């Protein structure tokens, strides 16, 4: 499979995405054929899986942007910006994710302007984005540091502006280095999103928890959840592996 991913990265990405969607929408059908306690609760599992995937996709994408911005910020020559980014990473890495989710859920509504209401789901997405963003920051920073200085000098000498140098030369080359680590964080995120249960977001783990509470049969329920998580992480890692293959050009092996 890895060879195939390397040979056709574009198709693999497309396939993994399509597979993920099919899986999400079709999940209830095979599950409903399963014996109790799984069968009757098929729709609950499917709904929980959808919430988990949405949380992962949103926090994953926002987290990459945050990681790039803060990763640049940490390497900035402008001291206050560096302090802010250092503080952000220090704060997030130094506190439990569960606490961060609770904090966003409890504190954010009090400082939001009148009339804007944040759903539980939105609070979970914000907290997860901030969390993975901090971990991504260090991956992106490592990637930027790995770009040889000569590449930047060549871009400067050609007259590229600092912004063009960053977008055309530094960013693509640093992402190539950072991607395996970013993929690692994404795989963690799929499962970390389960902590959203604490603020009553019914994602996959919470859905399972409810089903087992009704049926008093935890083992088949948790086995089912574990299987669904495995399928989801496989889809996400296939996606990132394909992306990696796509960026992996002009490298020495």
């Amino acid at each position, binding site marked *: 499979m890895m060879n195939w991913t390397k040979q056709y990265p574009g198709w693999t990405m497309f396939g993994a995405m399509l597979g993920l969607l099919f899986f999400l929408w079709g999940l209830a059908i095979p599950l409903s054929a399963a014996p109790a306690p799984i069968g009757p609760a098929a729709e609950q599992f499917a709904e929980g899986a959808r919430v988990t995937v949405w949380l992962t996709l949103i926090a994953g994408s926002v987290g990459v942007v945050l990681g790039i911005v803060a990763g640049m910020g940490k390497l900035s020559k402008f001291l206050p910006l560096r302090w802010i980014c250092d503080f952000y990473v220090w704060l997030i890495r130094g506190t439990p994710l569960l606490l961060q989710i609770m904090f966003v859920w409890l504190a954010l509504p009090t400082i939001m302007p009148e009339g804007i209401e944040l759903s539980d789901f939105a609070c979970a997405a914000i907290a997860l984005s901030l969390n993975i963003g901090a971990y991504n920051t260090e991956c992106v920073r490592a990637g930027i540091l790995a770009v*040889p200085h*000569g*590449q930047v*000098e*060549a*871009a*400067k*000498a*050609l*007259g*590229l*502006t600092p912004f*063009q140098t960053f977008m*055309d*030369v530094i960013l*693509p*080359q640093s992402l*190539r280095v950072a991607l395996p680590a970013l993929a690692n964080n994404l795989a963690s995120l799929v499962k970390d999103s389960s902590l959203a249960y604490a603020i009553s977001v019914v994602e996959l783990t919470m859905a399972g928890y409810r089903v087992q509470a009704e049926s008093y049969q935890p083992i088949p329920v948790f086995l089912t959840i574990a299987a669904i998580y495995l399928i989801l992480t496989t889809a996400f890692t296939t996606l990132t592996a394909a992306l990696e293959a796509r*960026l992996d*050009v*002009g*490298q*020495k092996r």
Partner: protein
Amino acid sequence: MDNQSPPSQPIIIARNVDKRFGSFYALRGVSASFSEGQVTAIVGPSGSGKSTFLRTLNRLEAHDGGEIIIDGIVLSDDLQHLDAIRREVGMVFQSFNLFSHLTILRNVALAPIRVRKMSRADAEAKALALLDRVGLKNQAHKYPVQLSGGQQQRVAIARALAMDPKVLLFDEPTSALDPEMVNEVLTVMRELAHTGITMLVVTHEMGFAREVADRVIFFDEGVILEDTTPQAFFTNPDHERAQAFLSQVRHGF
């Protein structure tokens, strides 16, 4: 060797240029001017400041004192001046510094697209013509890592030429090459020298300096010790340091 007529308006003027790294003086009051179309070989022992001098001319190193004027523009921290100068001054590096994530064609076409705002089609047509000129048209769709050192350096020359610079700076262009690849690069440079482009070549290739250059500058300990014709330099240098240097490198040619 058609530059025996009195030089026209100098395109590069350096007056009393100083450069310090900490307490170490890399350049001490260096003054020199270069007229259009002149090919100058800059030689000297390592650490003598010859590369540093070259790198101050397109501000890869900022000079600490004195004045540098290129094509009538004073080199300073003013970004607009800097952009204007970097458009006119191309550079070829010792370690090639090709953008490793881009194909050969994109390497050459990038700066015209970004800096000269050329259309992609025009820039790539131009890039192909330049690659043809350095004998690498059939390698256009490969990545830098797939090429030999000599080929990469020829691409780097084509990349610098794509901006139609008035001045080309060469920073030890053959020093990182295997001996059998030195000649293919020197051949390209020899052809360039006859096109009327202003060339400053920091080099250890004394054969090239003697045969192709109109002028030889000898650096030692951050100052210009000799500034003369190749013939005078190689047959009868004024300074003992230059004589010692020549007897050291003479075994090579």
